[in-house]
């Protein structure tokens, strides 16, 4: 008994003794929390992204010893795509000097937006979240590059216009919009209705509640009745593969069915098999493993058993989306080190790093990702999004194939609406703080 007690006491004493050392060591790290979801009804979309985000950052630690000689302390917090859990994650990580938080859910992002300025932690909602948060004067702590949902919708319409021989040809036609009944799904509706007025088409909305995701037979019957010229999808999780299946079952022409970049994972189309052939979606990142950085991830992370990715899913569209997210995080940290002259950077520094972030075509190449994404060139204090380009990919029955050039969004149409929406947000949220953060000269 005494020996046991002695061992316990020794262990506790050792732990207490080491604690300050551990804390000191942690203080030398850059803390990067990742809000991910590997469980729950949306895990099919969350897992590949979580793997991609995690693996790229681990690769930087393994290959380069971190960023600027400082190791990254990477920690995942499971949200299950549940807004309440996402907020709990924020509360758990905000005190540990996070460099940046990636909520990976529009619902969670919407809840965190008012907290970011208070807790001095920047939020990176990469190509999701509140479109209006692109307005840096109103949302100095929120960043949503490379493009907003509204940019995405305008890119979809540019593609449709090209196929129709001009957007004016849409006059009198019907465009169907099927969406997940959520903040995310409803986000592009204002612009869609604006386009409908401008180009003279009718919009048919098909809302899909989360608990109906795996049925959707009612919605697709209505599509059959309404016969829209094009179907646009803002889906997520299990909604995507089911919609692709129902569309093919109802004989909807798959090459006129186009999803946003969050409706274009390999699993989304794979469930539909050969019948899903022709399905289109936007994409903002490269496909496959034919990039030096991806090969480094394989060498330093996957082959060493430090990744959770299944080997045949390495390099798929959403895995690479996660990689893209982590490239932005890593380059923002690197830029923050440059801007502030500090090695160990925290949220306030990384906010400045994000505001002046540049990833040129040459830099993408240096990063081992040539042509992987549109160059990030337009971020500034005023513009936290940049309105960068995306391309269209098409499912060939077994894999995604790039079928368009990089298409730039209709910034001239989107930006004024974003400014209006940002003003509206500020008006509705009485006491919204005026921007007090200085703007770096480099921006």
């Amino acid at each position, binding site marked *: 008994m005494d020996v046991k007690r002695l061992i316990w006491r020794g262990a506790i004493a050792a732990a207490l003794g080491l604690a300050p050392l551990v804390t000191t060591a942690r203080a030398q790290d850059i803390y990067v929390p990742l809000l991910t979801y590997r469980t729950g009804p949306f895990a099919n979309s969350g897992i590949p992204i979580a793997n991609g985000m995690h693996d790229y950052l681990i690769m930087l630690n393994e290959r380069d010893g971190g960023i600027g000689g400082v190791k990254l302390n990477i920690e995942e917090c499971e949200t299950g795509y549940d807004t309440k859990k996402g907020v709990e994650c924020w509360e758990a990580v905000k005190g540990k000097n996070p460099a940046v938080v990636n909520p990976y859910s529009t619902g969670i992002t919407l809840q965190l937006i008012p907290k970011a300025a208070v807790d001095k932690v920047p939020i990176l909602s990469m190509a999701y979240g509140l479109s209006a948060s692109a307005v840096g004067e109103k949302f100095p702590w929120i960043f949503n590059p490379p493009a907003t949902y509204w940019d995405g919708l305008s890119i979809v319409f540019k593609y449709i216009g090209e196929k129709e021989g001009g957007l004016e040809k849409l006059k009198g036609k019907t465009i169907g919009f099927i969406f997940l009944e959520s903040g995310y799904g409803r986000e592009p509706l204002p612009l869609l209705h604006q386009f409908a007025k401008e180009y003279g088409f009718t919009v048919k*909305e098909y809302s899909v509640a989360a*608990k109906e995701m795996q049925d959707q037979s009612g919605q697709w019957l209505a599509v059959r009745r309404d016969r829209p010229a094009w179907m646009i999808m803002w889906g997520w999780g299990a909604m995507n593969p089911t919609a692709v299946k129902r569309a093919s*079952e109802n004989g909807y022409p798959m090459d006129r069915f186009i999803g946003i970049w969050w409706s274009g994972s390999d699993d989304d189309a794979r469930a539909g098999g050969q019948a899903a052939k022709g399905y289109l979606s936007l994409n903002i990142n490269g496909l496959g493993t034919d990039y030096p950085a991806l090969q480094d991830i394989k060498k330093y992370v996957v082959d060493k058993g430090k990744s959770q990715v*299944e080997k045949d899913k390495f390099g798929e569209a959403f895995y690479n989306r996660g990689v893209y997210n982590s490239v932005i995080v890593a380059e923002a940290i690197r830029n923050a080190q440059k801007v502030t002259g500090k090695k160990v950077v925290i949220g306030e520094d990384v906010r400045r790093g994000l505001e002046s972030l540049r990833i040129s075509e040459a830099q993408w190449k240096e990063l081992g990702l040539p042509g992987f994404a549109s160059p990030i060139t337009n971020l500034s204090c005023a513009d936290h999004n940049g309105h960068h380009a995306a391309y269209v990919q098409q499912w060939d029955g077994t894999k995604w194939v790039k079928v368009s050039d990089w298409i730039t969004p209709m910034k001239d149409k989107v930006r004024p609406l974003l400014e209006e929406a940002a003003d509206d947000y500020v008006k509705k949220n009485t006491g919204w703080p005026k921007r007090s953060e200085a703007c770096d000269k480099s921006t």
Partner: protein
Amino acid sequence: MDLLYSIFIDPFVQMATAPDLLAQTLWEGLVGGMLYALIALGFVLIFKASGVFNFAQGIMVVFAALTLIGLHKLLVQNGVSNATAAAYLALLLTIGVMFVLAFAVERLVLRPLVNQPDIILFMATFGLTYFLIGFGELVFGGDPKIMITEDLRLPTGAITYKALGGLLSLQRLDIAAAVIAAIMVTTMAVFFSKTRIGRALRAVADSHKAALSVGISLEQIWVIVWFASGLVALVTGIMWGARSDVSFALEVIALKALPVLILGGFTSIPGAIVGGLIIGIGEKLAEFYWGPLIGGGTDSWFAYVLALVFLLFWPHGLFGEKIIERV
């Protein structure tokens, strides 16, 4: 006036002018209804045996489907070259796993809680749910899986023919789902109403103590009922999984059984069938003909409103047992 027209006249005009679409809507409703009935059946069996709403039924559907796919993959990787043989072997093994699960639930969850208030058992099914979620994710991962539809020799493709002035398209898989669900529900209904075990089940449902006093083995009944419920979960998982994919999102679909149970009655197998069909057909008609008036999305709440309306007139459901308590 326009509003009244679009609510009370226009939908019926649409039905009359496009009977093909009406027939298609009714068919989709029928298939959905049969599948809802199947899910509801799993709840009814356990409710009859233990008076508890089994919150774990949804996750049992996911767990059974994932086990089937996982075992099939394992068999194929280990040299069973014929995919169909592997699929049916995996099916048998999965049935075995569901029996083990039923046995474990009886031993580890139900037996220690005999004669405890119903709410304790209900909470225990919450615990079971979270255990199965965690265990399932640990073993199978959270990635979506594709149901082994073709290896199970389930029909695919569609039968399309011109009728009623339009085109009717019936998915072969939906036809199979409706037929299998009907057989399953009928078999269960006959088994639990005409056999000795069925009578014992009803006795257990009335009173645990009284059933024990006349020599009915509570443990045996519970294992049988949970096993039957597991079989229903397996069939549900195969059918729903084949219609989309198999992921933890399937768990949510089980919530659809709640209005079916309210409508049909928690203790009635025919009630589950009738309730399922009313909800299935009702929600498809409502979404198709009246949904556009309010921006669609009616199928997320219509079933509950319909159940509420039924509750006003039949508080125990259409076929539920009336509970009379004397003071």
